[in-house]
């Protein structure tokens, strides 16, 4: 194992996004022992009443380091942690916070209760000691209004879906910054384990029209334009949709479907083959059921 016991330390490095906003970039890769599961972007916002976090990273260790970094950057403790969606690379770090500090939409809270703990075995198996002491906390602050104001900072709450069953995007009115969660990926292929592609497209339409100056994606570098990353995400999910539909129509088995050529326009996308093969696993059973005619029934 490349990581020594003493080295279970994330060494989080903030990047400035806009006035009073930083992002801690995740590794644009799969969840691996070498990155400790820190693959998602996490955002820190400064307010008069304390630091606001969007997502919490993959583990208790990450959440603890995140708290210290937020204190260092803002000089204040963490006032609130927003969770964007159920995936453990975004949520499991909430173990470092009290339930009343953690905010989510009612739809996400329901998903976290039913499905959240189920990721634990997989995360511990992939990450071992990185995960020590990590136990997902269910958010105690229910988002019930279209916007929330904390310490003078007004954040619009966009309760959407498509990447998962409940995706929260957050729009910072003061800096026109969209913090998109995993509805938007940038130069890193979108992942689809709980995706509903038609709903995802509708959500991307909504996000495109907010008037933002820049976008913090859930994975990949900050997009300094209003919607290049939004367009790229849509291009990828549309391509995956069409390519896999064509693959099943041509009779390809899922091994072959995972090996189809990825168009050159996606050459800058990290983890493209990896996510395509995951998407085959997610979508092929449904595609097969719809494209293979019923040819036999119990007598």
């Amino acid at each position, binding site marked *: 194992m490349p990581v020594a016991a003493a080295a279970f330390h994330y060494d989080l490095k903030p990047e400035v996004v806009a006035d009073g906003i930083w992002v801690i970039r995740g590794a644009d890769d799969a969840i691996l022992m070498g990155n400790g599961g820190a693959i998602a972007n996490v955002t820190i916002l400064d307010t008069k009443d304390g630091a606001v976090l969007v997502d919490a990273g993959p583990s208790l260790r990450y959440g603890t380091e995140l708290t210290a970094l937020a204190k260092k950057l803002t000089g204040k403790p963490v006032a609130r942690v927003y969770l964007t969606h159920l995936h453990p690379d975004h949520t499991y770090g909430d173990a470092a916070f009290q339930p009343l500090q953690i905010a989510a939409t009612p739809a996400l809270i329901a998903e976290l209760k039913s499905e959240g703990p189920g990721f634990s075995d997989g995360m511990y198996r992939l990450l071992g000691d990185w995960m020590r002491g990590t136990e997902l906390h269910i958010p105690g602050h229910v988002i019930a209004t279209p916007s929330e104001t904390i310490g003078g900072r007004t954040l619009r709450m966009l309760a959407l879906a498509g990447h998962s069953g409940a995706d929260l995007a957050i729009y910072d009115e003061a800096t026109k910054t969209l913090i998109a969660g995993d509805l938007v990926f940038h130069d890193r292929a979108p992942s689809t384990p709980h995706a509903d592609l038609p709903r995802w497209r509708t959500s991307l339409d909504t996000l495109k029209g907010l008037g933002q100056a820049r976008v913090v994606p859930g994975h990949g570098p900050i997009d300094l334009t209003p919607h290049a990353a939004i367009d790229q995400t849509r291009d990828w999910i549309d391509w995956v949709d069409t390519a896999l539909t064509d693959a099943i129509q041509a009779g390809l*088995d899922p091994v072959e479907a995972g090996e189809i050529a990825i168009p050159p326009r996606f050459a800058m996308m990290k983890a493209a083959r990896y996510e395509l093969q995951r998407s085959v696993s997610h979508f092929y059973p449904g595609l097969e059921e719809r494209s293979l005619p019923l040819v036999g029934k119990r007598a």
Partner: protein
Amino acid sequence: MKTLGILLAGLLAIPATADAALPKDQLGSPMWGYVGKQVFGENAVVRFDPRVKVDFPKIAENQRSFPVQVDARAIPNVVRIVIFADMNPIQQSIDFSLANAEPFIATRIKLDQRTPVRGAVQLKDGSWLVSGGWIDAAGGGCSAPPVSRVKGDWAQHLGESRGRLWENAGAARVMLSFRHPMDTGFVDNIPAYYLERMTVTSSGGSAIGTVHMQASVAEDPVLTLMPKIKPGESVSFDGRDTNGIEYAGIVTAATVGAAVQGAGR
């Protein structure tokens, strides 16, 4: 597992020198000696050969259903293809005896842990060629924990079969999918219950092949074969599960379903 016990007893009785029959494992599997004997039998001639193309994804996103394809079309005189995974509790999943078919099969298997996944082909002279690779069953971290049965409604759909035939010039292909829980007998005191045999025949009456399956094949088994059929011929299948439920039907190239609406739910 009675046969396993007998095999194990037999294995322990043999002097260590008998191991010489199996070549040294290219994958360094701790189970190779044992599994090799189980699959190939005693004194079999076994060689590693990269022309046995064993192909699977880089990631086991769903360890309950991991796609595996074995393509041995570069090798003449193949009569049988087996698929097995050393570290699975039920190592062998597929045993395909082929007649008028290309030496090709694709399916999905269950994975229990990090394991070699192998394909082996038997030639007319009885010897075996084998190939394969390691796969980690850990998945992507966003997959829910493995459970025995994913779909609860299997009982109402038992016997249901889907299929499609592609008459690509010179390389016809048939994909068959069956609703079945494929219970291993290892979970929640549910006894082993699986689709054990599927025989495929052309409408002209020639045998295409018979696939024997174990419970290590994924729930709702899918088989892709390459039958050697004449233009216009259809393919029929008949098989049975371990409770004697019969699966039968005919797949014609014309049986194409309504246009597929896309990958999203």
